[in-house]
């Protein structure tokens, strides 16, 4: 069987970045084909913690803070629009977010991070450090082990699985074409346009967006770009449903509207192994009980491991490939926070060539220089 089809844009990758971009492109009136892998694949979207998060972003890049901030500003409106389109509630809320520190060492290193990124943060959304007494004043039930926290009032969360589904549902409703269970082999020039080859088929388009997560390096190599991404494992514990008790969001613990509690925030270099390990799970459990002692007798119903898609400097990467006009690359490990940015601003860049100025610094050229 061999098939061909023509469309304005092909998006490669059905994760949060690919589907948000595809939806945005469709909303701009372009015909879009989204190519995706099957049921078993490295899918960071399945392991997402659901934070819509500003407080620790930056890492010395003012552009990244501004980009994140704009996306967070888009969130309420974006969420409402997507719900109107699909009927799916994304559960977005912005109660302010805390990163809790469980030792003086953790508090000191968090303070240092906050100081480092402060110059780039907008005046109305500075991350602040809170001491133990202030944390206890604000949050009921916090354990003795909590020595302080960082806080930002713009932080919030959403139901990231609902976001994922709503983006797919919306794309479908707007007439986007989704083709799962395909592995993209290559992109090739075809006159002034491109062909994307899968096992037996090939698809033509004038533009191609690679949002292929950990698969990006393969395609970057094909167009002469350096390696962009590496995997970083995160593990999450999920508890049974509890009565609502936590209205604010912690970077390490959050309660979903359905009552389950997510416990996470681990970072490991485990190659492409997305399994779970006893030591990390045990550590997550220990920290959770130290943070909120009343969780001690709560049952864990499942655990999860997934691979974050990280660049070498932790910042996102957006680029129209040099010498391949119309071939775009996009990756970021904050695909929930940045979903509105991808659906709105990144999609406009792809569609009309209007690059948001603060994204131009995120090309892969910086990795070439480092190599």
């Amino acid at each position, binding site marked *: 069987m061999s098939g061909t089809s023509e469309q304005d844009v092909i998006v490669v990758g*059905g994760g949060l970045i690919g589907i948000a971009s595809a939806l945005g492109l469709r909303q701009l009136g372009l015909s879009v084909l989204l190519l*995706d892998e*099957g*049921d*078993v694949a490295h*899918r960071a*979207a*399945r392991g997402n913690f659901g934070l819509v998060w500003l407080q620790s972003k930056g890492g010395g890049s003012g552009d990244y803070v501004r980009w994140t901030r704009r996306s967070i500003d888009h969130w309420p409106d974006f969420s409402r629009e997507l719900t109107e389109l699909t009927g799916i509630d994304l559960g977005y809320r912005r109660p302010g977010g805390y990163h809790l520190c469980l030792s003086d060492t*953790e508090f000191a290193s968090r303070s240092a991070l906050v100081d480092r990124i402060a110059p780039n943060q907008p005046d109305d959304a500075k991350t602040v450090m809170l001491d133990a007494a202030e944390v206890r004043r604000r949050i009921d039930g916090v354990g003795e082990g909590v020595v302080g926290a960082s806080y930002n009032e713009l932080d919030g969360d959403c139901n990231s*699985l609902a976001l*994922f*589904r709503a983006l*797919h*549902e919306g794309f*479908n409703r707007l007439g986007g074409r*989704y*083709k*799962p*269970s395909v592995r993209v082999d290559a992109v090739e020039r075809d006159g002034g346009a491109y062909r994307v080859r899968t096992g037996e088929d090939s698809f033509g388009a004038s533009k191609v967006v690679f949002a292929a997560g950990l698969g990006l390096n393969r395609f970057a190599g094909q167009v002469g770009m350096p390696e962009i991404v590496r995997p970083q494992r995160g*593990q999450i*514990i*999920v*508890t*049974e449903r509890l009565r609502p008790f936590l209205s604010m969001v912690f970077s390490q613990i959050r309660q979903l509207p*359905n009552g389950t509690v997510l*416990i996470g925030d*681990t*970072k*490991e270099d485990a190659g492409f192994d997305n*399994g*779970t*390990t*006893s*030591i*990390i*799970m*045990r*550590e997550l*459990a*220990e920290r*959770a*009980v130290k943070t909120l002692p009343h*969780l*001690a*007798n*709560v*049952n*864990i*119903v*499942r*655990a*999860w*491991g997934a691979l974050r898609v990280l660049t070498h400097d932790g910042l996102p990467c957006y680029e129209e490939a040099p010498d391949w006009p119309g071939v775009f690359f996009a990756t970021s490990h904050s695909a929930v926070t940045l979903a509105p940015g991808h659906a709105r601003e990144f999609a406009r860049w792809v569609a009309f060539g209007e690059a948001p100025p603060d994204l131009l610094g995120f090309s892969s050229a910086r990795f070439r220089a480092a190599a």
Partner: protein
Amino acid sequence: MTASPMTSQKPADLVVIGAGPAGLAAAALAAGHGIRTLLLDEQPAPGGQIYRGVTRTPIGDPRVLGPDYRRGQDLVAAFESSGAKRVVGASVWSLTRDAEAGLEIGYSVAGAGTLIQAPRVILATGAMERPFPIPGWTLPGVMGAGAAQTLLKTSALVPDGPLVLAGTGPLLWLLAVQYVRAGVSIGAILDTTPRANWRAALPHMAGFVRSSYAIKGLKQLREARSKVRVISQVTGLRALGSDRIEAVAFRRGDGAEERMPAATLLLHQGVIPNPNLASAAGCAQDWNPDQLCWMPRTDVWNASTVDGVWIAGDGAGIGGAIAAEHQGRLAAVAALSAMGVLDGAGQDREAAPIRKALAGATRGRRFLDALYRPADQFRVPEDDTLVCRCEEVTAGQLREAVRLGCTGPNQTKTFLRCGMGPCQGRLCGTTVTELIAAERRVPASEVGHYRLRPPIKPITLAELAAVSKDDIPAVAAER
């Protein structure tokens, strides 16, 4: 002999999980060869499901539970004199294989968690009832026939009447006979076996009539039919009621609709391997198109695809209690050989009589598989019926997700939370696979199964946090 929970690194050379026929036989054989063998079992007493409470059933009259039940007492006796150790009430929540540390088992006893290294493991975690998703199956008063039988065996508990049994398969008839002998009144047995199954089963009749099932099974059928109203070729079954079941409605074989009052509806359409532990350990699974379920892939020695893990008994594919015993012994022989206790010739010599007995025990199975193959409509339900009980996901929602492009259960789980509840998809896994396959018009094998992860049983945060650190071989995460 009952050991207390341990925290030492390697408490045994062989760990057997599950004290049903496969686990008891495996542990007894291995310990009999002088191997340090540890049996972990969730129940307070050995026997598994089939011989549940065999050492302490409150039912005095042996006629109620039948002569087979006593075979379990012999197995327990052999195990107890073998020198194998046992931890009772051990809920195993994790089995993982690490490249450096090898196999590691996490289990809890009375709320205290332990991690142990296990050089070799035999999984004998048995079967579970196949889900029977019909309208109203989540109403209080509707339960699995297997669960009802457990209550009968361990506590002599009988359900509230009016009582209706519905479904297909040997256990349904066995339970009916056990109730009749215990003096319990059954309103009706609604037999959902499709007529066409007889035609499919007929070619396997010769094997069946020479099997131990034949006479026993026919006697049960006759006894049940003589005492209880049996309605054949039932379709369109549903449980009705608001807060709990009040009635059962269905279509009879002659096409007539019927409704009868019911306070209890016991459903059964066969058993399938309990997939959780094998799946979480990473054992490859294949779809069995005859038994309509996922089965761990095992070789002729019952070795799984994970090094050092064997799977014996119904957990490796439904074969019944007698076959389970022999499979347990085969796996133990293979494990002994892997440990160097037996050489190649010794392994084959030990295995020869076991294989012969196993062949006898599996005779007639194909006939039963064909005859009691559950009807399509009771495996792939209509849109309004709940598939995932934990997260309340309907068949219609699943079909909608497939139309959106989901190709398998892991993506429908991401879209719908289907299979994310406390049972981890144990109860909906086969239904979801078959439903997606039907919707996509592809074989179930192409659809795939849930990826499961430990913990496969709920444990508390405090329990996990208190697991002894020394037992965990690895590096901590950066923070």
